[in-house]
């Protein structure tokens, strides 16, 4: 009997560890409450995301989408459950190791978050600079990545000299310049008109094809419906739908 159990168990274990290798993001039973504030909480969330996947997080305001982003960035620590990104157990990550962890994640936000007193190239170079990359690397890599996002020739413009779409391209370039494993995008098209939004989505799609996993929070139904990628819908901190090639619903 015991022998049989062992035999039966072994392949399961193997499959499990194979899954672990494949998943870039794993959230298992993740719960986070804010007892003293009405910030949205999440409740027993289980999500597994593979390398190179493009995933939309949708749901009403206050559903807990941004809390998920915060948890993945290790700005917050879950009350219960386990989060791992790549081969890092984020829930057990020591404080001093957080910066190194964040280098494997790129971030894009609705409000671009560029430094106003630095040019496009300098904004991108800043991300390299602060993690101690030599200037020679920046000189080589920054023009490349700006070219990739379609800003060739505008390297020396300041953010206020760029359109919203162009500013967001700078932000994407900055997020991508370190070739992150994972790119988190929190409503990246929220401040952009529909045409510009589609351009940004094309850019993100191209980045996703390089093998970068992209997790994007959005309220833009057109984009979700056109892209036809995996959709995870959250409501009241719980996953109510997880659908490959889904629509906004």
């Amino acid at each position, binding site marked *: 009997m015991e022998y049989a159990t062992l035999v039966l168990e072994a392949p399961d274990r193997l499959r499990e560890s194979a899954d672990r290798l494949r998943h870039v993001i794993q959230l298992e039973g993740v719960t986070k409450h804010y007892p003293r504030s009405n910030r949205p909480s999440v409740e027993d969330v289980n999500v597994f995301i593979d390398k190179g996947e493009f995933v939309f997080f949708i749901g009403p305001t206050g559903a807990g989408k941004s809390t998920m982003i915060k948890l993945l960035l290790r700005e917050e620590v879950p009350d219960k459950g386990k989060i791992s990104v790549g081969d890092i157990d984020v829930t057990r990550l020591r404080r001093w190791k957080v910066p190194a962890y964040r280098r494997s994640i790129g971030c894009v936000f609705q409000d671009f978050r560029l430094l106003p007193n630095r040019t496009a190239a300098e904004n991108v170079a800043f991300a390299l600079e602060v*993690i101690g990359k030599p200037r020679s690397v920046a000189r080589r890599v920054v023009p490349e990545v700006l070219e990739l996002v379609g800003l060739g020739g505008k390297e020396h413009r300041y953010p206020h000299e760029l359109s919203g779409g162009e500013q967001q391209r700078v932000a994407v370039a900055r997020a991508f310049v370190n070739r992150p494993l994972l790119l988190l995008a929190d409503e990246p098209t929220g401040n952009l008109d529909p045409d510009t939004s589609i351009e940004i989505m094309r850019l993100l799609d191209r980045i996703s094809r390089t093998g970068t996993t992209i997790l994007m929070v959005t309220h833009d139904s057109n984009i979700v419906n056109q892209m036809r990628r995996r959709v995870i819908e959250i409501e009241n901190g719980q996953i109510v739908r997880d659908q490959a090639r889904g629509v906004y619903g």
Partner: protein
Amino acid sequence: MRAKYVMSEVFLGLWRNISMTVAMIITMAVSLTMLGAGLLLYNQVDVIEEYYQTNLEVVVYLEREVTQEVSDQIGADLKASPYVEQAVYESKEEAYERFKETFEDTPDLVKSVDAEVLPSAWRIKMKDIADAPKLIAEFQEREGVYQVTNQREILQQVFDILGGAQRLTLIVALVQGIAALMLVANTIQVAAYSRRREVAIMKLVGAPNWFVQAPFVLEAVFAGVIGSIFAFATLIAAKYLVIDGQFENLFSLMPPIDMQAILILLPILTGISAVISAITAWITLRFNIKV
């Protein structure tokens, strides 16, 4: 590259908030000046004690009409006392000579005192100056003795004054120091707020914590170092203008405060203020910039 960035951020931060920076430097300078003065006084008490310890005397002044026999008998008894190392007789003439020497700067005073007025005395070098009260008790009431004085008691008053001054400077240093540290904390908060964009982006792209915190901590350290240099300059100026200048006579009673004692304060004050400023800034940051 990164060092250059940090330094430019430090000076930008200090400049952007210049009135606060100046206030911070001034309060630090005052606090450190007081601390420095306190340390000098502390040192001075030691120096004075050491200087006088070997020179302190008990003086047995004799009555003016004392006979030679009584005086000799007192001298013999003094020399026989177990507390006495050495007893030297000083005649009226010798006392007058000493008096003239001591007050040679004020000839009017010397002129006004008759040589006959000064008493003759036995000047005694004690084996241990702490035994002086026993000796005094023994000889105070003897016939022919006018008065027995212990120089240590006079010195004790000087010590009391120095001790009081020292406590005062240290209290002022402490109060000013607290004010200075509060200003540091406030400056760092303002700086962290005005640079919150950069900080947020730095944390997002994974800049190490020390790198995010370095400009703020160095701002505080810079202010602390400048403050200590001002304090040092103030102490040097005080030595030349007050102690060696205007109040020279007042201070001539005690051994001079030597330059070396002040010079050694520069690294001490700079070190103390830099370390305390850095710690204050760092603690403030822990509350203001979360990982």
